[in-house]
């Protein structure tokens, strides 16, 4: 799954050689996301969309469990000590994966990715502008509105085929 905006905020370190080395790796990781979506569509058509989704979450859980057990940090707060709302992310993930398996056979992978992206951008622009979900209300500058407008134009172009 992809997470583009929030949660990845960190100050860039100044180290140009490492940056140049890592950039192709990040692009490759992005390509992997499309491969994942490309695998999901045909799989969903064969075994059903929910089964295809289960394969993603089942295999993902298994790998992450092993990684955490053998290579993860031993210490850290228990999940049971955290506020419950922080634990609901898992309910939202399947919505995204099911929609991926439904959409890619009909509109293609590149276009599905553009539509997903426009949802992400639109959501963050609207949340900032109106201060939804307890976010501090801040003025969204013209450039971000323009970006959102261009993404909508891209969607219209796709819908026309």
């Amino acid at each position, binding site marked *: *799954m*992809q*997470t*583009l*905006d929030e*949660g*990845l905020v*960190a*100050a*860039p370190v100044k*180290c140009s050689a490492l940056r140049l080395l*890592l*950039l192709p790796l990040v692009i490759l990781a*992005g*390509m992997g996301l*499309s491969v*994942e979506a*490309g*695998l999901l*569509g*045909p*799989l969903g058509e064969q*075994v059903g969309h929910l089964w295809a*989704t289960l*394969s993603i979450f089942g*295999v*993902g859980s298994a*790998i*992450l*469990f092993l990684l955490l057990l053998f290579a*993860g*940090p031993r210490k850290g*707060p228990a999940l049971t000590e955290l506020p419950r*709302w*922080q634990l609901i*992310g*898992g309910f*939202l*993930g399947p*919505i*995204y994966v099911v*929609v991926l398996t*439904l959409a890619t056979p009909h509109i293609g*992978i590149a*276009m599905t*990715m*553009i539509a997903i*992206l*426009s*949802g*992400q951008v639109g*959501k963050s622009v609207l949340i900032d502008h109106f201060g939804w979900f307890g976010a501090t209300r801040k003025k969204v*500058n013209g*450039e971000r509105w323009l970006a959102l407008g*261009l993404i909508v*134009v*891209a969607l219209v*172009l*796709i819908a026309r*085929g």
Partner: protein
Amino acid sequence: MGLVILLAVVVLAGAVLSVQAAINGRLGETVGVLRSSLLTFAVGAVVTGLLILFFEPAQAVSLLEVPKWQLTGALFGVVYMMVMVGAVPVVGTAVATVAVIVGQLGMGMLIDNFGWLGNPAIGLSSSRMLAMVCLAVALVFMYRSSQRTG
């Protein structure tokens, strides 16, 4: 008309994903990326399992019968996560985001155009090309606005 509804659903899924990223970001800060991801995937698997038990119609083919390479999708997601955890502190969020999108769309267009991995081949039409250009310009604007606000 069906296509428009489908597009709207996908856009909404993007918004949902973004909310999930916000929630998981907060969780990851306190318990670490591995734990927050495992929780997301495990809860996702349980929810999907429940939905299958009660709502999924019987299918002619099961997951065990399809070629094994079709089941490798999750690996790409996990690798993506690890790469981002390592790379984002070095290259910065904005650059990493643009690099991911470039990779996603480039690979997406390749798979679409050639019909790789058993997908229907969708040729690169002029309106699809134009949509890509719009998106590229949109990314430039987003990048510039994020530079300005810090």
